[in-house]
């Protein structure tokens, strides 16, 4: 039944440890092992281990790699320091979002630049890169020969430290370095998608299962566990982070998505740059915001948001927040209803559930 789905190097571990495997962007991935709430809480209080090998990893070499990437993404790549990682967007000519990505500038590497892209957009972005490629740029898709593991939570650095020649605590946030990880050459970065401190490890596919086993043992020792895509989704939603295909799409521009910080237009040239210059000052666009609900019914993607019975927006992601213990949602709403404190209703299958606009994120770590 699932034979056509791609498998990460950790697939057999997931399948033999209670992982409920689902099709995610063409990959067979664990949505949960025990329960979403258990895995979510373990990540908030100790450490969660996430197989994120389905994310696309694209390496760049050649003398034009830096200027090429600078001509593709919404933030400056020129001038990034070795070791620096930058969140950026890839936009189309109209300023619509093709993907949100991390740009890595690595020291001492034969391919000094790398992009991590969403699994669902990997082929689209590879094609986009190829169609814009300039003379001396090498593009190499390293997704299938590597694995990527996110170690997230207050105990994350503590359990990753003994396995990496580079101490993750020595890296500043959004920095990374080549490192010997569990005996093989890999990459460690102070990044993540949960709202917690932590790191992400990229290693050759063949080394991943042994590394994962070591991480699981260390995590369980401090009250952590492996966590699936279900917890990854509730964690990122509490942290107010957008997810491509939900908050982000080609029909949305970075400004309305609340991602103006990830757009640098000054003295730049990239697809969508001129469209974004016009959109930047445009008022009255629906904007991305968060809602907290008073009841127990959970708002889900696609539900209408109403003011005085009239549609004024829609939900793009919703869940029951394990940390806040109430339903939360992100979505887009007409600018007039975007101010924090604005009372609206979410049409939850015919029930008008009271909702209040709140500042994102819903959750901010204190440790």
């Amino acid at each position, binding site marked *: 039944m699932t034979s056509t789905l791609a498998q990460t190097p950790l697939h057999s571990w997931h399948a033999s440890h209670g992982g409920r495997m689902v099709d995610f962007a063409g990959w067979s991935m664990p949505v*949960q092992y025990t*329960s*979403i709430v258990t895995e979510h809480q373990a990540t908030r209080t100790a450490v969660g281990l996430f197989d994120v090998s389905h994310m696309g990893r694209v390496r760049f070499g050649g003398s034009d790699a830096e200027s090429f990437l600078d001509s593709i993404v919404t933030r400056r790549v020129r001038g990034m320091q070795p070791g620096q990682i930058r969140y950026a967007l890839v936009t189309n000519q109209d300023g619509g979002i093709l993907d949100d990505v991390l740009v890595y500038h690595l020291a001492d590497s034969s391919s000094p630049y790398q992009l991590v892209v969403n699994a669902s957009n990997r082929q689209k972005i590879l094609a986009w890169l190829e169609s814009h490629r300039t003379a001396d740029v090498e593009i190499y898709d390293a997704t299938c020969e590597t694995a990527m593991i996110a170690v997230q939570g207050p105990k994350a650095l503590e359990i990753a430290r003994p396995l990496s020649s580079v101490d993750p605590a020595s890296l500043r946030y959004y920095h990374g370095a080549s490192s010997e990880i569990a005996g093989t050459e890999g990459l460690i970065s102070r990044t993540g998608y949960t709202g917690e401190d932590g790191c992400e490890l990229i290693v050759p596919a063949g080394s991943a299962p042994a590394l994962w086993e070591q991480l699981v043992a260390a995590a369980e020792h401090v009250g952590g566990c492996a966590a699936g895509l279900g917890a990854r989704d509730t964690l990122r939603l509490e942290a107010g982070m957008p997810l491509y295909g939900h908050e982000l799409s080609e029909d949305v521009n970075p400004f309305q998505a609340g991602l103006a910080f990830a757009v640098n237009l000054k003295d730049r040239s990239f697809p969508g740059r001129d469209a974004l210059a016009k959109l930047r000052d445009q008022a009255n666009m629906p904007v991305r915001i968060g809602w907290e609900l008073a009841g127990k019914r959970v708002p*889900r993607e696609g539900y209408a948001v109403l003011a005085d019975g009239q549609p004024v927006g829609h939900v793009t992601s919703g869940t029951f927040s394990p940390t806040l213990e109430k339903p939360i949602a992100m979505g887009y709403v007409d600018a007039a209803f975007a101010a924090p404190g604005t009372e609206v209703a979410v049409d939850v299958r015919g029930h008008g559930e009271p909702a209040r606009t709140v500042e994102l994120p819903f959750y901010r770590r204190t440790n």
Partner: protein
Amino acid sequence: MQPQDLLYAKTHEWVHVETDGGSKIATIGISHFALEALTDLVFLELPEVGRQVKAGDSFGEVESVKAVSDLYSPVTGEVVEVNAALPDQLGQLTDDPYGAGWIAKIKISDEAELQNLLAYADYEKQCAEEGH
């Protein structure tokens, strides 16, 4: 109640039939298998007492962190009682799905429909197939 003694709908509700005077009363709940699949319950909507339902009608909802699922009435009849305390004690639903976690009682108006429900062995077979 023992799961082996109950009847099951394909949609994972269990049914226990008792005779009360001249009428047959069906007690209805959600199977352990379905609750294991749902996990992380956050909300339960009970049917309304007095409501007439047909077998297969959606008569409530159960919501988990991940998704919402309809509850379907396995029988036709009138809802005569609901487990009103259950929505505030969802732990009972997961801990004791065949006892304290019952959902509703329905006064059956079409006994013949009970033949459409699955015996335990057949229901188990269905779950094993779904589990793959």
